[in-house]
């Protein structure tokens, strides 16, 4: 799924995580970690500057690609006019509702299948078969079912979210250390307590990985769904701008999509750091 590639783009580089660590690693250079961060920003900044220069000198037609400064100015204008915040709000609401519904269904089914071999036998094959369909291929069918209203968008987002959550929840529950389950039994825990104190915390790292993937797919699903027959939202803004060849608005929506993708990933990462503080691979340094 192409959405997965989104996460790798935003992955924190190793040297950024080890900011406090001043030792020179293997292949060490004379540049400190701060210097490396600075260097890593040179290329992107240079790219934007070159882009700006080309656009200003007229080498790059504004209809092909407007100058970054022009995109920024458009952002300010649309924000002041109120249309950008409104469309952004509509898109975020769709993403949130779709994520909640799809995530809820995925988590519920994943938990059921994780705990019960019977549920696995009954449910899992069907889910895996549906999962084999690239969910965006369902788009025409979804439009026939729901039209091009909110239902279609929310359904598509839910569909994209449900599978990663389902798979990672099931996997997480199955991977809980059987020795800890045994210990829970020895300590006399009831089934409910065993689930709360041992199984769910043990499955949490995997579930949160599912959440991160799901955020990326949710966003991808939304972009596609909004591009088709929306009356509001970021996708509508972009398609509307296409009618009038407003490339500045189109580029602006692309940038906003990217920023929200990065934001969602940071959110998931912060959630991991907080909920998995106990975990040596996630928690902040003690």
């Amino acid at each position, binding site marked *: 799924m192409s959405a997965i590639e989104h996460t790798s783009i935003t992955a924190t580089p190793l040297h950024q995580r080890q900011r406090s660590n001043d030792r020179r690693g293997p292949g060490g250079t004379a540049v400190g970690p701060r210097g490396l961060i600075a260097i890593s920003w040179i290329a992107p900044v240079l790219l934007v500057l070159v882009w700006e220069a080309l656009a200003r000198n007229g080498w790059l037609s504004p209809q092909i690609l407007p100058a970054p400064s022009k995109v920024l100015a458009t952002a300010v204008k649309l924000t002041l006019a109120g249309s950008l915040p409104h469309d952004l709000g509509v898109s975020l609401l769709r993403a949130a509702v779709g994520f909640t519904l799809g995530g809820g269904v995925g988590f519920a089914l994943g938990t059921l299948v994780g705990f019960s071999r019977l549920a696995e036998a009954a449910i899992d094959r069907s889910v895996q078969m549906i999962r084999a369909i690239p969910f965006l291929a369902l788009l025409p069918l979804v439009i026939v079912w729901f039209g091009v209203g909110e239902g279609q968008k929310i359904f598509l987002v839910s569909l994209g979210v449900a599978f990663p959550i389902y798979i990672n929840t099931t996997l997480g529950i199955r991977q809980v250390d059987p020795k800890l389950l*045994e*210990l829970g039994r*020895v*300590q*006399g825990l009831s089934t409910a*307590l065993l689930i709360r104190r041992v199984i769910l915390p*043990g499955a949490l790292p995997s579930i949160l990985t599912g959440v991160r993937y799901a955020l990326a797919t949710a966003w991808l699903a939304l972009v596609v769904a909004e591009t088709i027959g929306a009356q509001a939202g970021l996708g509508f803004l972009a398609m509307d701008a296409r009618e009038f060849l407003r490339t500045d608005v189109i580029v602006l929506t692309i940038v906003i999509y990217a920023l929200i993708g990065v934001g969602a990933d940071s959110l998931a990462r912060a959630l991991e750091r907080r909920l998995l503080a*106990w*975990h040596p691979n996630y928690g902040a340094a*003690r």
Partner: protein
Amino acid sequence: MTRPHPDQTDTGDAVTVTDLRRAYGTRTVIDALTLRIARGEFVALLGESGCGKTTLLRALAGLDPIQGGRIDAPGRPAVVFQEHRLLPWDTLWRNVALGLPPQGARERAAAALAEVGLGDRLDDWPRNLSGGQAQRVALARALVQEPELLLLDEPFAALDALTRIRMHGLVKELVARHRPGVLLVTHDVDEAIALADRILVMRSGVIAAEHHTDQAGDAPGLRRLLLAELGVRAGLAA
């Protein structure tokens, strides 16, 4: 610290096993095994790997079903495993309090942790502990349940020699104070002699020999005898 009244400790049995049979499929691992452990009594179970000693312990712990005979024990036994089995996502006191009623759990866990010398680490995480410290927490978690029967499944096997000696002292002290019946499964003859009142040697699913350490008097002699019963000649063992 008040020792329990004698007629509380020495009347009851911590566990009575009668004609126990335990089999995996068609392979019988334990057959017609009978065993009594009194409250306050420390019993060590010696045997080579695969002789059925851990199988016996797991049956007593209620972790595995049995195929015949009966196990009578008042209340639920507590177990300390070879690995500490602390929940990595819970702080130390929450680990110790696992399974306690929530009312007053923190106080009881704190007292138990203090007993094993970790009273100042209540809110610390398991990953910050050494192997010996983690095993001490596991011991606190078992004893806070105030079990009548304490099952120790090679709990010191993974520790270094010095830590192991310190743990022996601690366990002896704690058992003397709480007076549960203890079954220690081990393959370490010296550990059995150092800790136990009674030593059982298990071979092919039956108890092949039994020694009372207080009657033996002569520890080197007992050691040689036990090693011989385990199939190790003294000359090789030294």
